[in-house]
């Protein structure tokens, strides 16, 4: 499948509120849906995404847990096997490293290893942190570790509307889904339909059409690629921006069709590149016969280092519209001198909004 039409009606909603609404509507629809994890029911309410749910559905369906990620993940797998629909929340993706055994040795294999007798429909929500000194252990994006594993699904919505649609699709999915959120997207608003809807697995979206280069952004890098496209327009370069949305299953057809048209691909990941999603996408495109002509393939992502805390070099750790635009420029105009866009224009709204500690 390829692009899907934007939801018809809707109100302006933040990414965080869209997540909250999705969970709320699904909990109202299906009493087997419940949500839990460290601090889901305190006053911060996972940055608002679980606000009001405990009051509405009770402590039996919305509760905070001890600091025991390994057992709590296994608990979720067991509850899912038993017919429930757990949503397990982590305020940082870094903590998923305590959940690997249950997610990969159990959840991913439940349906297959037991000959189809059981299934594990659970959602593992995990937020990627960025900026304000998140540093080495609160800034990691680890979704590719899960995208490597058959039996798991992985999604990384980049806007409020997809956040709602993907969350509903993930909750209704009969398989374990790693749901990747990005802290800096929480304030970003979009028109979100009021009624429940699903943004289904395996469908990339073409966000803006273009002819010179295909820009694939992942998670928080989608808005950065959209801004990049605007900057490139000033330089007379037409970029087509694609959001894969779901990382496993991954819809490469849409990407390959675009590259067949533009002849150039730059994947901008919100994570490290080695053995990451950007590697997978480049490999899929490189393998495809559709590009017999051959295309220019490149990728960007985190610098291949641990994320530093101090802001000056933390900034260099991440791709941004300016560095992405310069990279594209050098791809489209190989001979030409290096080019950089107007720094002011390159700034993203939320970069001004966000202010620590977490």
């Amino acid at each position, binding site marked *: 499948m390829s692009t899907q039409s934007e939801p018809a009606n809707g109100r302006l909603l933040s990414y965080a509120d869209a997540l909250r609404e999705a969970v709320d509507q699904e909990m109202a629809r299906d009493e087997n849906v419940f949500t839990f994890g460290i601090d889901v029911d305190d006053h911060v309410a996972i940055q608002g995404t679980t606000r009001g749910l405990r009051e509405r559905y009770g402590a039996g369906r919305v509760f905070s847990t001890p600091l*025991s990620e390994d057992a*709590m993940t296994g*608990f979720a797998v067991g509850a899912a*096997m038993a017919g429930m629909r757990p949503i397990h929340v982590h305020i940082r993706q870094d903590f998923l490293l305590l959940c690997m055994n249950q997610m990969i040795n*159990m959840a991913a294999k439940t349906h297959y*290893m037991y*000959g189809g007798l059981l299934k594990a429909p659970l959602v593992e929500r995990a937020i990627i942190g960025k900026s304000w000194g998140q540093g080495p252990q609160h800034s990691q994006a680890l979704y590719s570790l899960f995208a490597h594993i058959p039996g798991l699904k992985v999604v990384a919505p980049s806007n409020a509307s997809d956040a709602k649609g993907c969350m509903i699709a993930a909750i209704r999915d009969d398989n374990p889904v790693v749901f990747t959120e990005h802290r800096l997207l929480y304030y970003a608003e979009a028109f979100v339909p009021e009624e429940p809807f699903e943004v289904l697995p395996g469908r990339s979206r073409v966000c803006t059409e273009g002819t010179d280069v295909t820009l694939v952004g992942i998670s928080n890098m989608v808005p950065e690629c959209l801004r990049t496209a605007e900057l490139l327009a000033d330089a007379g370069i037409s970029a087509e921006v694609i959001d894969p949305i779901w990382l496993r299953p991954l819809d490469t057809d849409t990407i390959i069709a675009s590259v067949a048209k533009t002849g150039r691909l730059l994947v901008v990941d919100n994570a490290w590149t080695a053995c990451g999603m950007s590697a997978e996408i480049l490999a899929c495109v490189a393998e495809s016969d559709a590009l017999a002509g051959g295309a220019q393939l490149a990728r960007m992502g985190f610098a291949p280092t641990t994320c530093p805390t101090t802001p000056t070099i933390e900034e260099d750790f991440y791709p941004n519209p300016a560095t992405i635009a310069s990279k594209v420029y050098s791809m489209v105009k190989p001979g030409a001198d290096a080019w950089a866009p107007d720094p002011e224009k390159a700034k993203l709204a939320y970069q001004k909004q966000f202010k620590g500690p977490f």
Partner: protein
Amino acid sequence: MTDQDFARLYRSLKLIRRVEERVAEIYPSDKIKSPVHLSIGQEAVSVGVCDALNPDDYAIGTYRGHALYLAKGGSLNGFMAELFGKIDGCARGKGGSMHMIDTAARMLGCSAVVATNIPIALGYAWKLKREGKQRAIACFFGDGATEEGVFYESLNFASLHKLPVLFVCENNALAIHTPLETRWAHHDIADRVRGFGIPVHGNRDMDVLAIREIATEALAGIRAGNGPVFMECHTYRWRQHVGPNEDFDAGYRSRDEMRKWVESDQVERIGAMLGAGEKEAIDADIENRIVQSVAFADESPFPGPQELMTHVYAE
């Protein structure tokens, strides 16, 4: 206890013993291409506990799960076919010896990664508690599993939420070939478990009747909503950690160790309690069922190529 009770216990004990002995005999033929962790000698734990469970209670175990699977009423044909890697196996041949499952018998899937099944049991227990039908789940694991952090995390959560879980530790004093002294700072697991507010009951000599009684009592409390109970059953593994044979020549343990356990062998003990003729009838029936199950496994076809990519994802 009635005669029927003894007969039922014997039937279960003997079935497991004979099935695993048969598995060991078949193993050299390479028909079973799957690592087998036999429970021979340890049957009484699974049998005693499962006899105290209701049919609609759940059980979950480990790669050493043959005894539990059969004690909980798992299909013998499905079991044998699974070992043979056939499509009629309880997991379509995809799981093998370490992943026995029979959802109809409320026997949940076994896991080959030590202690991974413990938090899984909590999830089921959560569902059972919400359902409010006084059902429970018995979670089986070995002494080695209690060294994994997830075991303690699970004790805390189960106790905190008074989940209907019966934790059953089969303490055979070995993890593969490594003795407790190399693994436990303090010899008594009960002292660790009580620290989570969980009552502990132990049985040192694998008395199937005592185990059954302890489990029955424990389950009454669990069904009443008092929260989890922990049972430690000392036991002894007669065969290799993995594989069909004895291994007293390996040097890590002596045959003397085994003597006391053989002398108190529960299969013999309970068998001796049955009326003349009854034992023989049960034995004959068991041999019969085993022969049939092997024939069933032999005749069942291997999974076809399309099975490789079937059930990767649930639809």
